[in-house]
């Protein structure tokens, strides 16, 4: 008997939150009539209480880190410290205009500068630009830098970007946005890159390779030094997709592995919240070969004065990626998070993320699940495949994912990476307790029993949420992405 109305279904003519707007409508005198709007668009017409109640209740229909265990592989759903949010939302930061004079920017700029410096040490690179607004934009920037590098050497033949088949979808998409053709490199059954295939693919057309390590398969690419050598020998460069940096913080650094440029996902490794889809932030780090091409703006410092570096300072920069300084507030959050953890804390991140993942992996194996890479250590995440269960009982990975929701646990990433059929990619993160992991193991153990004895419950899960399983096919076929009939909804005023 819940209220499931849309905000528009509560509309009543002209109603709005009167405290939130000026007391009257001013007359418009100086704008020609034909420039003016004559229609009244369909927008909410609700009181402040209605709005607060509506969206408070909507929020309650979400699973989130703050309410549920959320072992979503490749997403690093760790605790987002509340203090970090509070620090980033101090009024001095929130009210600063992006174009404020440098005299009124020293607090903000100093945070960014120090963040740049810390990320250099964390990655083993020599320069950092903080401006990309998410991982994918970081990838674009990094690949564009590779392109700029080859072009600066007049090496125009390099038109191909190599990408392992296990790569995240943003990798090939970013390469294409940079004008490259994508060549997929296959993976061996142990999860490592197929070096023979790589060798065959390399050549004068090779601009570079994009790698995640540990890969999205949840294993560490052990041949990384060899790969780096092969690619460099062929004249290509190495891009590191830092989405899985949480796995190796303080253990091994992309710079030391031989990568030339990389991005980080601050909204993963550095605990800035995911916000139901974003915002993220994807700073990019590069070695000496590439640092001149970094996107602007960058923050400089001389004699304790901080200032912006732009085209003048970086004439070879690939350019700007946003109107101002990327997702500035997320940078402040990441800075605050790193300061909270400090060097010791950062080292622990990878250790406990890895401990949790390996513990879960061993326990799920005991519970009868099939590991995708049974001979390997888990990194900070690992994969199980439901292929045997699908064959034997007709229960697939999606069913398990949905059934977990009934146990108050968010589903792991399902059906990614694409090359492992019926897979679940499970990432517990370091901030979850053993009790929470044990509770998950217990749920998965019960589910294994249900898979074998009660396929109906598996197929109709979730049972206990406000909605049963949703029809995604209908959503795509009978496209309904705005409410009401567009033409009726807009009336003349």
């Amino acid at each position, binding site marked *: 008997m819940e209220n499931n109305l849309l905000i528009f279904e509560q509309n009543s003519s002209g109603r709005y939150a009167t405290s939130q707007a000026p007391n009257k409508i001013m007359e418009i005198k100086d704008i020609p009539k034909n420039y003016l709007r004559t229609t009244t668009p369909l927008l909410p017409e609700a009181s402040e209480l209605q709005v607060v109640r509506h969206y408070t209740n909507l929020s309650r229909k*979400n699973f989130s880190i703050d309410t549920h265990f959320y072992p979503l592989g490749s997403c690093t759903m760790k605790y987002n410290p509340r203090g970090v949010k509070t620090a980033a939302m101090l009024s001095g930061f929130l009210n600063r205009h992006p174009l404020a004079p440098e005299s009124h920017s020293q607090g903000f700029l100093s945070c960014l500068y120090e963040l740049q410096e810390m990320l250099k040490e964390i990655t083993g690179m020599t320069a950092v630009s903080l401006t990309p607004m*998410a991982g994918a934009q970081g990838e674009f920037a990094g690949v564009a830098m590779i392109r700029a590098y080859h072009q600066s050497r007049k090496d125009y033949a390099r038109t191909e970007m190599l990408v392992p088949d296990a790569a995240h979808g943003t990798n090939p998409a970013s390469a294409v946005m940079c004008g490259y053709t994508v060549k997929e490199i296959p993976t061996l059954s142990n999860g490592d890159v197929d070096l023979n295939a790589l060798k065959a693919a390399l050549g004068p057309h090779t601009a570079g390779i994009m790698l995640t390590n540990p890969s999205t398969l949840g294993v560490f690419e052990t041949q990384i030094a060899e790969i780096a050598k092969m690619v460099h020998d062929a004249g290509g460069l190495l891009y590191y997709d830092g989405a899985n940096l949480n796995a190796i913080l303080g253990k091994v650094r992309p710079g030391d592995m031989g990568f030339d440029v990389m991005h980080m996902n601050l909204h993963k490794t550095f605990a800035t919240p995911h916000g139901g889809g974003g*915002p993220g932030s994807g700073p990019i780090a590069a070695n000496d070969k590439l640092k001149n091409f970094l996107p602007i703006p960058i923050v400089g410092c001389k004699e304790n004065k901080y200032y912006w570096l732009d085209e003048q300072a970086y004439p070879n920069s690939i350019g700007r990626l*946003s109107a*101002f300084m990327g997702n500035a507030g997320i940078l402040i959050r990441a800075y605050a998070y790193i300061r909270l953890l400090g060097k010791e804390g950062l080292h622990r991140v990878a250790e406990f993320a890895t401990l949790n993942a390996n513990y879960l992996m061993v326990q799920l194996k005991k519970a009868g699940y099939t590991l995708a890479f049974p001979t390997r250590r888990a990194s900070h995440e690992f994969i199980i495949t439901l292929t045997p269960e699908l064959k034997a009982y007709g229960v697939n990975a999606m069913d398990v994912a949905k059934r977990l929701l009934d146990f108050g646990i*968010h589903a792991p990433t399902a059906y990614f990476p694409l090359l492992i059929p019926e897979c679940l990619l499970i990432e517990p993160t370091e901030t979850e307790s053993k009790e929470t992991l044990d509770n998950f193991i217990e749920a998965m153990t019960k589910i294994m029993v249900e898979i074998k004895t009660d396929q109906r419950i598996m197929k109709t899960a979730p049972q206990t949420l406000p909605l049963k399983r949703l029809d995604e096919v209908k959503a795509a076929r009978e496209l309904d992405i705005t409410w009401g009939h567009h033409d009726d909804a807009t009336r003349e005023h």
Partner: protein
Amino acid sequence: MPFIPHTKSDIQTMLNTIGVSSIENLFDEIPQNIRTGKFKTIPDGLNEMELMRLMQTRADQDKLDFNFIGAGAYEHHIPAAVWDIVTRGEFMTAYTPYQAEASQGTLQLLYEYQTMMANLTGMEVSNASLYDGASGLAEAILMAVRLHKSSHKILILNSLNPNYKKTVKTLVSPQNIECIECTLENIKEHKNKDFAAIVISQPNFFGLLEDVDKLTDWAHENNSLVIAVVNPLSLAILKEPGKWGKTGADIVCGELQPFGIPLASGGPYAGFMCTKKEFIRQMPGRIVGATVDKENKRGFTLTLQAREQHIRRAKATSNICTNQGLLVTAVTVYLSLLGFEGLRRVATQCHSNAEYLYKKLLELNFIKPLFPDKPFFHEFAITLNKPIKNMAGYNLEKDFPEYKNSFLLCVTETKTKEDLDLFVENLAHGK
């Protein structure tokens, strides 16, 4: 151990279960020769109390009392309810709503958002956000090129925000797309030159209003699509792009910051994009659709995912994955509180405050309008006849060397008549 919940005995039990003797063993697949030592220059950890003191000091350094800078980011009142709701853990700490049944809050909100933006812009469909206004325009251009098929050229009215131009260049040039700038005066020279699209911003960077009907029709006559870059708040009073010219703009994009998003040094903000239904399959970014569950109850889910990188990979409409979801949450709550009535009040107040200051300033003998007698929304440009130290407003000279000693000033609903009078008085007395 900050944020690590493990007790010693937990660690031991877990190691025993795994069958290793130390955590270090779990990293034994990493070749020794590339292993890292301990971090050195990163400072020791702080506790939250120390952190807050540090950050408070930093934040306090940046307080600026009176701001008349706009230039793409605008100071507006943000209702307290907005961020109280946005920062609820359920919104703030959820991931992208891939598991629809566990994400109905975010999904329904996005469906409502799409409806609001489509209606406000007068378009048929909206996506669920792009990074920001500038990169969103680049996405619109890529989309227009995909739609147009035959042309890789884009015509841009040079009154566009210069940072947007730069961002566009970075993002579209690798695909060999050429952006050509024109003025209102010389646009005719580009007739029949086969542009995929023309980019019109309304209001333009200088706050001025363009004759969008004429421009739109001209573009369509020349077989170009029209990309409208608009300040969405201005649509409370200005003609919606869906009604520009005879058939309306084709792609509408812009910056959502004026709708409940704090200035915050430039981000996170969010870009929006709306278009005609026929173009939806070339639209980048996530889209939410309504559907039903097994019991025929209405629900919401991500849809048309076959456009996106996680399905289509190299053939996706964009590489965007993480977007600006939480900001869209703020925008949605903001628009719900304000409604069209509230938006009109905000927009007309901005306009009338700006008009007021403009006229007052022109009464000073050392101030001249940079673009006399042109209608504007809430931003205008002036030229000073004498140098003034720390002039509030955005100095145009850096981006436009031809506009010496000229400033772009923005006035929103946050300023009172008294504020404006005081500002003018101080200027008059050389303060």
